[in-house]
């Protein structure tokens, strides 16, 4: 009997693998021209890389910018002809000319390419404060064999996330409080040792994963007088085992998103968890901030994906005794860990669900006459619970933004086709170019089901005046999320500063919240002396049964402002107030960090806050994990 099952099991797996491979082949064949593939938007690393490829070296500054987003070799610039260009070879957009970027940029922000605000080119090491080291602690670490360094560049690199104010300061060469030491544990036991020693010598530990925080979570608290040690998890990046029977994977928490997916893909699996930051963010970071992935409609958010978590705290290791899929054992202790933002301990290992790689993927897009119709359509899709892997609705401003990133078209025929499409939509269908908006879609699964699903969604869209607008538009929409952070650096070269922030809100308030927050931003900018109307735009990025996640981009030209950062911070603050006043949440997936702490009491009530505080007091009475996030 047993062997029988085994055989049939093996056969099933083999058949599935075959299907997957066939799917890839098919994709290659038909993808020749369109080049449609989910991975295409993100970094393309050669397939042949060894299983244990470390894409994050200890010296991150060797491949990544010290004062901006992402890889050093990839950046936007305006070339001598004034054309937009994206350098490097990593992305689909890399090496391409973006002819309409300049006009859009100048018209949107009222800037001129004549007026530059270049960043300080290199880090002035002498400006970095000398490390405050606890010698016996360092000694014992050495004895324990844990890698450590107090190299100034490495410390500066780990002193910040990617909030605007953090990057802005670095570009101006301003260095604030930085960690005194960086340590690189290799495994769970190393972490146990480090935490023990930290407790022994009363050293402040700050876990550091991908460094993509946008909530000031990685800033060293100014009031911290102890030695601050940045615990870099990047070397704990192995997949420890894959359990194909239960479809789970056990991974060290320092692994970053793209490595995890690539390595799983090689075995025919994926987690399906794809936050926009997945090129750089780490599994431990996702758990610590309650991350959300683009394809959560199929795979779920991090809290749905996690089966087991191991975390090292000053009190010891916390974990569950089994991997049962659901338990009724009091409040789920995972929920003390998820969203704890590094205040309780270090997540070292995680068991996650995996899924077989989908055999087929397809992008799509729908044009709506206006944002309101688009939201109604998304609401209906959610009501019928037929959301594709991803469905996002961009407002008009963002749609135009996306268009500004269209690469140079090679043939007259393509540009003719574009013109024809535009004519059809605006003239023939009567869509107002300044009102229309577009939804981008990503379908995944087996081919037949995808096509069927696609039809269902387009049929719903038609009821709300939506017109299918092609795969290309859809794919460009997703590309935007990976390059937006690079674009911010370009803006900062020309007096433009900006940021994104997010919320979640019940369906019936989506439209009101979007309108009011965008308008509040415009008004606050005006009242604070911003000379040119800001870029204030939003998109609905996730649908849920009872509401949606809304993402805002906001940027403005700061020429003529005495203290642009202060203006920026006030406007962001007021925008958050507006979100809360309109029934939006404090955060959908960015977390609270130190940036949004002031609203925590209001968000979870005094009793709720007290509960969290008492957990902190029990787990970490001496505030070893002293990043002071959240509470």
């Amino acid at each position, binding site marked *: 009997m047993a062997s029988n099952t085994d055989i049939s099991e093996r056969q099933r797996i083999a058949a599935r693998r075959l299907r997957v491979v066939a799917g890839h082949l098919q994709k290659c064949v038909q993808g020749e021209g369109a080049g449609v593939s989910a991975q295409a938007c993100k970094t393309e690393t050669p397939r042949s890389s060894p299983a244990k490829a470390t894409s994050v070296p200890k010296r991150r500054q060797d491949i990544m910018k010290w004062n901006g987003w992402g890889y050093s070799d990839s950046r936007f610039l305006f070339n001598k002809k004034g054309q937009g260009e994206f350098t490097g070879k990593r992305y689909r957009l890399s090496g391409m000319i973006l002819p309409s970027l300049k006009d859009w940029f100048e018209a949107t922000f009222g800037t001129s390419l004549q007026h530059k605000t270049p960043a300080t080119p290199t880090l002035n090491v002498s400006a970095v404060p000398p490390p405050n080291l606890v010698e016996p602690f360092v000694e014992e670490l050495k004895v324990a064999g844990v890698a450590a360094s107090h190299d100034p560049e490495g410390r500066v690199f780990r002193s910040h996330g990617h909030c605007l104010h953090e990057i802005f300061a670095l570009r101006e060469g301003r260095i604030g409080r930085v960690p005194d030491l960086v340590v690189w544990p290799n495994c769970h036991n190393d972490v146990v040792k480090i935490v023990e020693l930290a407790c022994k010598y009363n050293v402040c530990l700050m876990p550091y994963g991908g460094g993509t925080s946008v909530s000031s979570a990685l800033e060293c608290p100014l009031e911290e007088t102890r030695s601050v040690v940045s615990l870099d998890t990047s070397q704990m990046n192995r997949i420890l085992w894959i359990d194909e029977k239960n479809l789970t994977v056990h991974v060290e928490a320092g692994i970053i998103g793209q490595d995890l997916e690539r390595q799983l893909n090689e075995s025919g699996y994926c987690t399906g968890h794809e936050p926009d930051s997945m090129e750089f963010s780490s599994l431990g970071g996702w758990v610590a901030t309650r991350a959300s992935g683009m394809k959560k409609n199929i795979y779920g958010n991090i809290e749905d994906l996690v089966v087991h978590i191991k975390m090292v705290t000053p009190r010891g290791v916390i974990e569950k005794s089994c991997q049962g899929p659901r338990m009724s054992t009091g409040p789920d202790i995972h929920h003390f860990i998820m969203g704890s933002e590094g205040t309780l301990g270090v997540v070292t290992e995680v068991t996650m669900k995996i899924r077989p790689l989908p055999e087929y993927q397809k992008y799509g897009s729908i044009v709506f006459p206006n944002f309101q119709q688009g939201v109604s359509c998304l609401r209906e899709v959610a009501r019928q619970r037929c959301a594709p892997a991803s469905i996002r609705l961009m407002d008009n401003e963002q749609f135009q933004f996306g268009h500004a990133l269209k690469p140079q078209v090679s043939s007259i025929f393509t540009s003719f086709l574009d013109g024809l499409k535009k004519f059809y939509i605006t003239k023939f269908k009567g869509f107002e170019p300044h009102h229309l908006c577009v939804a981008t879609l990503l379908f995944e699964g087996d081919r037949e089901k995808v096509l069927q699903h696609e039809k269902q969604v387009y049929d719903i869209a038609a009821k709300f005046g939506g017109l299918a607008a092609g795969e290309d538009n859809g794919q460009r929409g997703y590309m935007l999320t990976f390059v937006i952070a690079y674009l911010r650096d370009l803006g900062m070269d020309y007096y433009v500063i900006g940021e994104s922030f997010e919320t979640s809100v019940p369906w019936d308030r989506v439209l009101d*919240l979007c309108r009011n927050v965008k308008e509040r931003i415009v008004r606050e900018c*005006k009242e604070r002396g911003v000379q040119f109307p800001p870029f204030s735009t939003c998109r609905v990025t996730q649908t849920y049964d009872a509401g949606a996640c809304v993402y805002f981009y906001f940027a403005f030209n700061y020429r003529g402002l005495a203290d642009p950062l202060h203006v920026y911070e006030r406007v962001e603050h007021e925008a958050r107030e507006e979100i809360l006043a309109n029934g939006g949440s404090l955060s959908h997936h960015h977390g609270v960090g130190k940036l949004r702490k002031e609203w925590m009491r209001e968000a979870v009530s005094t009793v709720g806050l007290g509960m969290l505080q008492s957990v902190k007091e029990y787990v970490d009475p001496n505030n070893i994990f002293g990043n002071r996030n959240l509470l």
Partner: protein
Amino acid sequence: PWRPPSRHAAFSGSTTSPDLRHPGLKKRDELEDMLEERRRSSDARHALRCYAPAVYKGLAPREVSALRGAVLQSDALQHVIGQVSRRELVQEEAAHLLDEMAHRLRLGTVRFFAYVLSKVFKTLFRSVRVNEEGVQRLQQAIQDHPVVLLPSHRSYMDFLMMSYILYTYDLALPVIAAGMDFMSMKVVGEMLRMSGAFFIRRSFGGDKLYWAVFSEYVKTMLRTGYAPIEFFLEGTRSRTGKSLTPKTGLLNIVMEPFFKGEVFDIHLVPVSISYDRILEESLYARELLGVPKPKETTSGLLKARQILREDYGVMHVYFGHPVSVRSLAQGRVKRSQYNLVPRHIPQRPCLAAQALVGEAAFRLVRLQEQAMVLRPWTLVATLLLQNPDGMDLPVLEEQAAWLRRLALSFGAFLDWPDCKPCREVVGAGLALHKNLARVSGGRVRLAVAETPGVGQTAEELAFDRAVGVLSCASYRNQILHVFIRPALLSVALRTANSSRKDEVYTCFNFLWTVFSNEFILCPGASVQDFEEACYLLGKCCAVQESQQDIVMSEGGHATLAFLRALLDPFLQGYQVVCQYLCKETEENLRENKFVPAARNFALQLILAGTLKCYEALSSDLQKNALAALVQLEAVTKVKVGDQVTLKVNRRAASSLEDMLGTF
């Protein structure tokens, strides 16, 4: 790239803004005559011209019929219908209520009105002067946010004129909340409906469904930016020329979409409409004396044609600065309180929101008052009322010139031509109001009969006189808001035991409380009002202030005496009401019997010669006095079945009378 900045006259929450504290400093817009153009070019062409107003930027274009569907199918209305009882029946009733209520704005009718009203207004008025800067501000406001127009209400002409002006300046036509009484005017009612009026019942306190239909109708129009909403904060036409205590019901409704986040902001635009002569002048006086208001009928309107033969002078319309509800609510109302209940479910506004709406209502009425153009005649009428035996013309002129200076120093928006000599200005007023004041032998006096006419009883004579006095008082009342705070202080100064500020304030506060129904005194603002009064009297050198004390200055006698005399009729009138209540023997006085009985009591005193103050006969004053007595707990209202009876606490009423007597 920014559009021209639209300025918001948002006033700060709890403290009085500098504008209100020192109204004299306020810069006011120039006024232009809008009829001038009409006198030069064709009315027909005006009525037929291309009308393409700027609309709200977020407007979702909508037909009148679609509006009806949107209201009837709205979650809010469906929720209430579901609560009331069997759905189908109620749904039908709701549709019926909506049809009874809804406007049916048609451009054709508007054009018809534009033509007819051009003719009518040109006959009635020498000119209609409008602040065009205000019109431009309004145009900007309409594009930015939903707008609520809040005109003052002195005459039926008000809303006709409002729509006419908006049409003339190519602004979006408002939908106007009108009382149901108009609907009974057959053709005219329908025509008003087609020019944007919608009709609401005067009272529907307990009717949940009616309330739901009504409030959803208004809110739907507001949220979608369908049209500016216009209604009268005072609720009804003021018969006395004074602003009435604002009603907050509709204001609550129109502010709610902001509290619930359904709109980014709402602009409230106070509009001050003032008349040289009010069309309903003597009608109002008679109404105040108990002659019932004529029912609005079409034939009645036709009979009123004789009105067209008279000269009504100049009309002034002043569009105030838009007041942003968002700025008003800033830091005062937590909008997140609405997060936990679906917004279509009716929710009682929180105390902070209620307080805010109440306060806003008073302040808006004050803004109306302050931008009301005052004509020299109002000063003349004030002086004549204080001198019932008449005045020599030169004396009157001299005093008018003095009063003009005083009014201006108190910040009055006085339209007194600088270039003309005082004699001419006073003369023009007397000429326009020859029915109220008579000049004979160089002496001016109120045009009231001295001796009974043939077959006239003493009562009828007294009634005639009262009509004259009350008509005249309606002009004096227009200027009272300028003087009221200093006047209260003047009276308090004389009565207070010492000149210590706190004692003077105690007296001031007592009077302030007693008269809080009579005049627009913002609730809870007695300290600010006291300070304002001190400031104004100090400014015109009538008093001197030190750290502790406040005393009359040497030359202040005339000013203070004048101001005290202003309040005199009200003090006397309130005393008479107290006397009446003390003497009234009936145990359970029905509320609806109160006014006639009090009037009769006052009339007897007048006939007996013990009372000279005809204003004590005014039902408005009597009602306000009663409200004050209820507030001071000298009278309690008891509801038995449908009847409301008044229980008088005689001790309290008589001590109040004594107190008033000391002033």
